[in-house]
């Protein structure tokens, strides 16, 4: 798209920002998806920087992807952004789009949290590439993140397929230079090639030569999807995003993503095949490298997927036998490559005994009030994926069950039907999880005549990923007050009999409301309101402090999990339990936990 008055400048961008820029330069019309570390900011940057692109946070990843698929069928380039755990939710939608006719390019930007640096999972999005036969691209730095985003749309349209752009926590959070044209003007791309687009069922019927499959009406719908991918597999040997750097004959490395740079940093003489398109594989280039070197390695973050695919071609490579994967290794570093492949590399180890930092909630978080009440009354409960899941950690012990996003209501229902409702196993869920998929659990338990209690934590945003809006927020990209959904009204409409709304900081009211709900003989919902302290920067109350003369060091207050409460060694070596004035917001929760009246406002 070079125009005459191009002004190239170098801009520092992180990977997320560069992907957003790529979307802009690719002429994307619609961006949808669901927040998820590490790729949330792709949407934030797109929305802030490029107002020409329609942006939405959808209710969940599946909806987000379906929106993008619809927009793509309309002819417009569309992207859906999510993390790999989110793509599990959207997998059915992806299966439907795979192998179907693509009008406007359709690209999924999916974040893999390699190294579990900031997240909770060790997934690898490339499995979806294998499962659905979908191309996967992976950038090594911000420049490539931008360039491959554009390439992804071209591939999507040329080979009629959804394309996955795999980005990792390292790519997302690394800032490096990107060359952009300051004078670039946005041009929306639209192409309507196919009048219909159907899932593969129809194509496979014809491939199997089912009866009647030669009917012209059916033939019109046919899309030879295996042929498209075969063509791509052959063409990609000539793509300049797949680079063969032939050097020394001793060591050859096939690599992609940031591990490419780790390899270059450490193995100066190695011959390297650097893949921008990691699926399908450029077989010719791989064979050429294999011929050239004595030993061939594959260095890839995440699971051993390229390794297996290369071995499937009948080419032997060394991968996880030398570099064992999770849990031995969280992610590649230059150090690991050096240790294994450079003779006499010095050994360096981190000092022993440095204490670990467990996650803690922000001081004043409403979740802490709920955890405290559940623990105090020994109420058994399931936690959802929310900031409140910190209550599952060993120091808090507030929850007995925790699984995926939106699950807690159905988990509790399952427990309760299995145990004949002998005890009320409670579900705690955030507003984000409730709208994402949790609402289905609630509908499900009502029409299946179950009985259970749900605590919905309404903090007006998706706090865990930094405070994006949800259906019940009072802000958002496309927000209008008249469209805000009320959690209480929706619960009522679904058929919940007993619904109360309480302020989290009114400890006694909240305690009563939860106990009433748990003991009620009907379905109940307790909506606990308090905007996320961190997102909304709530005004602080006066800090609390601990009277050291009264404190017995029983540590009950520490177990509530507030960041502001610390166990500190004084200068004389004596340990004291203290409240950090800078962090305390004065919510008063800790004072309800102290039996010795040592905590005062």
């Amino acid at each position, binding site marked *: 798209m070079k125009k005459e008055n191009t002004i190239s400048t170098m801009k*520092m961008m992180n990977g997320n920002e560069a992907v957003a820029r790529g979307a802009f330069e690719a002429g994307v019309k619609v961006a949808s998806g669901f927040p998820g570390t590490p790729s949330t900011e792709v949407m934030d940057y797109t929305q802030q920087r490029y107002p020409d692109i329609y942006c939405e946070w959808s209710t969940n990843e599946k909806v987000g992807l379906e929106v993008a698929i619809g927009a793509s069928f309309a002819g417009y380039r569309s992207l859906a952004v999510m993390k790999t755990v989110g793509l599990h939710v959207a997998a059915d939608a992806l299966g439907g789009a795979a192998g179907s006719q693509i009008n406007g390019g359709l690209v999924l930007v999916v974040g893999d949290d390699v190294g579990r640096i*900031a997240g909770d999972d060790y997934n690898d999005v490339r499995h979806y590439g294998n499962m659905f036969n979908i191309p996967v691209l992976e950038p090594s730095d911000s420049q490539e993140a931008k360039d491959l985003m554009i390439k992804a749309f071209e591939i999507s349209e040329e080979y009629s397929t959804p394309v996955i752009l795999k980005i990792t926590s390292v790519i997302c959070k690394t800032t*490096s230079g990107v060359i952009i044209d300051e004078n670039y003007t946005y041009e929306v791309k639209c192409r309507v090639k196919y009048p219909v687009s159907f899932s593969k069922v129809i194509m496979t019927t014809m491939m199997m030569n089912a009866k009647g499959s030669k009917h012209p009406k059916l033939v019109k719908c046919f899309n030879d999807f295996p042929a498209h991918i075969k063509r791509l597999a052959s063409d990609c040997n000539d793509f300049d995003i797949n680079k063969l750097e032939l050097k020394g004959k001793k060591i050859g490395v096939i690599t992609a993503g940031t591990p490419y740079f780790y390899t270059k940093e*450490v193995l100066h003489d190695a011959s390297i095949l650097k893949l921008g398109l990691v699926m399908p594989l450029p077989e010719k280039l791989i064979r050429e490298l294999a011929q050239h070197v004595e030993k061939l390695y594959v260095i890839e973050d995440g699971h051993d997927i390229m390794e297996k695919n290369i071995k499937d071609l009948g080419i032997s490579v060394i991968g996880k036998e030398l570099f064992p994967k999770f849990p031995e290794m969280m992610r590649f570093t*230059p150090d690991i490559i050096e240790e294994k492949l450079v003779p006499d590399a010095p050994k360096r180890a981190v*000092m022993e005994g440095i*204490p670990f930092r467990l*996650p803690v909630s922000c001081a004043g978080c409403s979740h802490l009030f709920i955890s405290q009440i559940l623990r105090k009354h020994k109420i058994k409960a399931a936690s959802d994926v929310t900031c409140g899941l910190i209550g599952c950690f060993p120091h808090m012990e507030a929850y007995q069950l925790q699984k995926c996003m939106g699950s807690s209501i159905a988990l509790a229902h399952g427990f309760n039907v299995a145990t004949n409702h002998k005890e009320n196993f409670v579900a705690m869920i955030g507003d984000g999880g409730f709208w994402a998929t949790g609402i289905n659990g609630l509908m499900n338990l009502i029409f299946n005549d179950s009985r259970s209690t749900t605590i919905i934590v309404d903090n007006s945003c998706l706090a865990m990923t930094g405070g994006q809006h949800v259906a019940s927020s009072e802000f958002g990209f496309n927000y209008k007050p008249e469209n805000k959904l009320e959690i209480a009204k929706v619960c009522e409409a679904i058929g919940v009999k007993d619904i109360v709304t309480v302020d989290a900081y009114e400890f006694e009211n909240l305690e009563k409301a939860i106990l009433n709900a748990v003991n009620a003989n009907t379905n109940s919902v307790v909506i606990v309101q308090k905007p996320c302290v961190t997102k909304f920067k709530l005004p602080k109350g006066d800090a609390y402090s601990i009277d050291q003369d009264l404190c017995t060091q029983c540590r009950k207050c520490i177990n509530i999990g507030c960041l502001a409460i610390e166990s500190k060694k004084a200068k004389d070596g004596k340990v004291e339990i203290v409240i950090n004035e800078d962090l305390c917001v004065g919510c008063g929760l800790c004072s309800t936990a102290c039996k010795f009246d040592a905590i005062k406002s």
Partner: protein
Amino acid sequence: MQDTGKNIIIAGVGGQGILLFSNLLSKYYMKLGYELKISDVIGLGQRGGGVESHFRYSNKPVLSPFIKAGDVDYLLSFEQTETLRYLHCMKDDGVIFSSTFELSTSSVNTRLEKDMPESKTELIKSSGKKTFIIDPDENKSSDFDISKMMNIVMLAFYAELRGYSHDEMIQIVKESVPEKFIEGNIKAYEKGIVIARAQLA
């Protein structure tokens, strides 16, 4: 000899302005025409987790976003437990800047782990590397909140050690922080110069 580039780790806990620090420094090195790669690693948890920034500038394209252990020229740490995590990464002639501030770790608070018996400050001092310790309590000022602005204090210290222009650095600070914080930040910067000159003398 002309500076061909350095590897820097900036470390601390959430809320200490580590990302601002690397942002300010990046503007300085960009003006000098260096190539940069800055990789931020933000730890588990909502608050109070460890944060580290790998900052590399070079007159050649920077390859790995992570600095290999043993290749760190400068460590600037705003929390001393975090300082300890990087001591093994230093070059033999690497330089350490460490605040004595400590945010007790949740695992020690909740007795899942015992704290280290030794003084952390002493452990840092005895690493055998050139080390500068800054005690926020000894350097409290009514002009600015050192608990929030240790990043700027250390920026000034670092600039003084490297012989960089303070005027240029202050200009970058002015351009980068919100209007209402400029004055406090400049006070913090000036304090940093004073601390640096006293320690370097």
